[in-house]
């Protein structure tokens, strides 16, 4: 018994020393982003709120996908299927049971996670192209459940999903602003949870499995369980995203969760940079925002609406290929590369160089080069300035 009790203070101390600042940092960033979004959503118009909500919907789903592919190393082309599970579950809960919004969001997330777990058990045995094939077929097949069980799921017409602005907010809040608040709030919660998960023991284990499965297994990690868990997390995010997409679209139908949606999620994750949550935000914005603009440009050049709607698709394809050939690490990787290799760092070195040489040359340069990406230049520069003044 005494043996069991003695290690207790250490985890507590570690929590106070390392884990807490990570949590505090993530929460702080989320609160800051929340304030900016709150102020922002009040100043931009209805249409921009609507677009903002659309981006936030994608952020939720893409964040889960980028974690699955980038961290655990499993590819899924079919995350749109899990979005469909969440969206349809939410529509059924709203129509039949009249649950409140927050309960619907949680239940749809949990429901998609369960489906993700079932599929994950099958998927954990599959590798590379076989996994890609299975998820691709999932994305194509699952929406046809809606046509098979037409009486419950509404067939091609789908189901309505209307959630109005709650009464206590009064008439000043437009439905679009409310939509933006709900979606952005959900996106922020998702980001904080995932950011902590990535920095946790589980996140490190995923990276170990991704880099070398056999080495990870020899080190005592349960590879299959970790891979299933990654599928569960990714499916849960997709389920939440699907519910929000249903709310944004005010209905669910098989057409809403097409293969194109799954491919758009993959595009956003790759463009942003796989495994990066910041990248998920950037990638989602790039996939969602220029769509209408490109279409309008094409139409203004004399194309018909039907033809013009193909221009954004063409552009996405071209961008996907170019990004993969030129910057395989995505936008996040490009930014990191610029910070690492370009003038930003040279400038920092040029500024701190003379000071560093005067104080202690060796370790300061080393720490600036090998430090954590988030705190690359600042910590190295500060003590030196204090030392010389």
């Amino acid at each position, binding site marked *: 018994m005494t043996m069991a009790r003695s290690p207790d203070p250490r985890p507590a101390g570690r929590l106070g020393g390392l884990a807490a600042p990570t949590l505090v940092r993530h929460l702080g960033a989320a609160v800051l982003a929340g304030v900016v979004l709150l102020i922002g959503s009040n100043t931009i118009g209805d249409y921009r709120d609507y677009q903002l909500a659309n981006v936030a919907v994608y952020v939720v789903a893409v964040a889960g996908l980028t974690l699955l592919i980038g961290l655990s190393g499993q590819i899924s082309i079919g995350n749109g299927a899990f979005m469909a599970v969440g969206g349809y579950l939410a529509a059924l809960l709203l129509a039949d049971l009249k649950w409140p919004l927050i309960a619907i969001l949680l239940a749809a997330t949990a429901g998609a996670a369960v489906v993700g777990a079932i599929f994950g058990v099958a998927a954990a045995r599959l590798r590379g192209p076989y996994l890609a*094939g299975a998820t691709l077929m999932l994305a194509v097949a699952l929406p046809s459940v809606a046509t098979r069980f037409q009486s419950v799921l509404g067939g091609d017409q789908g189901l309505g999903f209307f959630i109005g602005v709650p009464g206590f907010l009064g008439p000043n809040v437009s439905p679009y602003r409310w939509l933006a608040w709900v979606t952005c709030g959900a996106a922020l919660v998702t980001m904080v949870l995932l950011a902590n998960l990535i920095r946790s023991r589980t996140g490190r284990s995923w990276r170990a499995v991704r880099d070398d499965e056999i080495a990870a297994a020899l080190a005592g990690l349960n590879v299959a369980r970790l891979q299933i868990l990654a599928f569960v997390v990714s499916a849960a995010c997709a389920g939440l995203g699907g519910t929000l997409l249903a709310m944004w679209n005010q209905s669910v139908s098989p057409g809403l969760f097409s293969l194109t949606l799954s491919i758009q999620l993959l*595009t956003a994750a790759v463009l942003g940079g796989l495994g990066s949550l910041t990248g998920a935000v950037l990638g989602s914005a790039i996939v969602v925002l220029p769509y209408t603009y490109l279409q309008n440009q094409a139409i203004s050049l004399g194309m018909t609406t039907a033809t013009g709607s193909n221009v954004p698709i063409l552009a996405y394809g071209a961008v996907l290929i170019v990004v993969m050939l030129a910057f395989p690490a995505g936008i996040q990787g490009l930014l990191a590369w610029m910070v690492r290799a370009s003038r930003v760092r040279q400038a920092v070195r040029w500024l701190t160089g003379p000071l560093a040489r005067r104080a202690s040359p060796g370790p300061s340069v080393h720490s600036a080069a090998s430090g954590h990406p988030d705190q690359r230049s600042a910590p190295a520069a500060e003590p030196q300035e204090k030392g010389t003044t």
Partner: protein
Amino acid sequence: MVEFLEFTLSGLAAGMVYAAIALALVLIWRGTRVLNYSQGAMAMLTSYIALTVINETGSYWLGFAVALAAGLILGAVVERTVIRPVTGKPPLNAVIVSIGLLILLEGLAGVLYGSNNRSFPFAYSVNGLSIGSVALGITRNDLFTAVAVLGAAGLLAAAFRYTSAGLRLRATAFNAGVARLLGVRVGRMLTLGWALAGLIGALAGMLVTPPLLNPNSMDAIFVLGFTAAVIGGLESPVGAVAGGLLLGVVLNYASGYLGSESVNLFGLAALLLVLMFRPTGLFSAAPARRV
């Protein structure tokens, strides 16, 4: 019983097309370790080119030949321009590039030809054949499809087996490094593999596109062809054909006895069932992992 025979034969006819797509995917996979997600889109584009030729000249067979030639060229061009830079990189890069190509080609076809359906001619009559008073559930066109696919597969197998280029292709697929040391121009072989796959894909496109063609008309066919390739095991051309025929028959029973809306669900079920017991397909060798 007659119904069962009918479903089996028409299932085999449908399976021929899945087999052709699967064969194209396997050709590419064996050579370059890339899964070509744009195989369906490439076939869609060559079918549009064929339709243009058919409408201009009035000759179906000229359009057919042009489609095959276009598939050959498109395959080679794609390999040289966008696939070569990602071979040898992490597998995901090639996946993304070929998905990008899929979107690019579909967008391109939409911009060039519009998104609406165009009617596309059959090669032969689609009136049901029968022996005496027993309907067989297949048509003259289905017979042509079977002959074309099996003929192409047979020619391909013979070329791999009996020609010098076929030997070099097999050597490249078996071990590119050793093949290069033995004087095989590996780069050219990879391009040739993609060109042949483009040709087979274009053939599948010509066979399956009628009666209607639109930029997305090959999507569903591609997914089923892909499923067939995975079921067969991506290493094996024989497996690709067998997987295609198996899938065609199973799906035809499902749609015949249970309704056409359950086809994709049964495709998923068949795929998962096979992969649960054989995670690398039916016809592949036991998987070996490098430690």
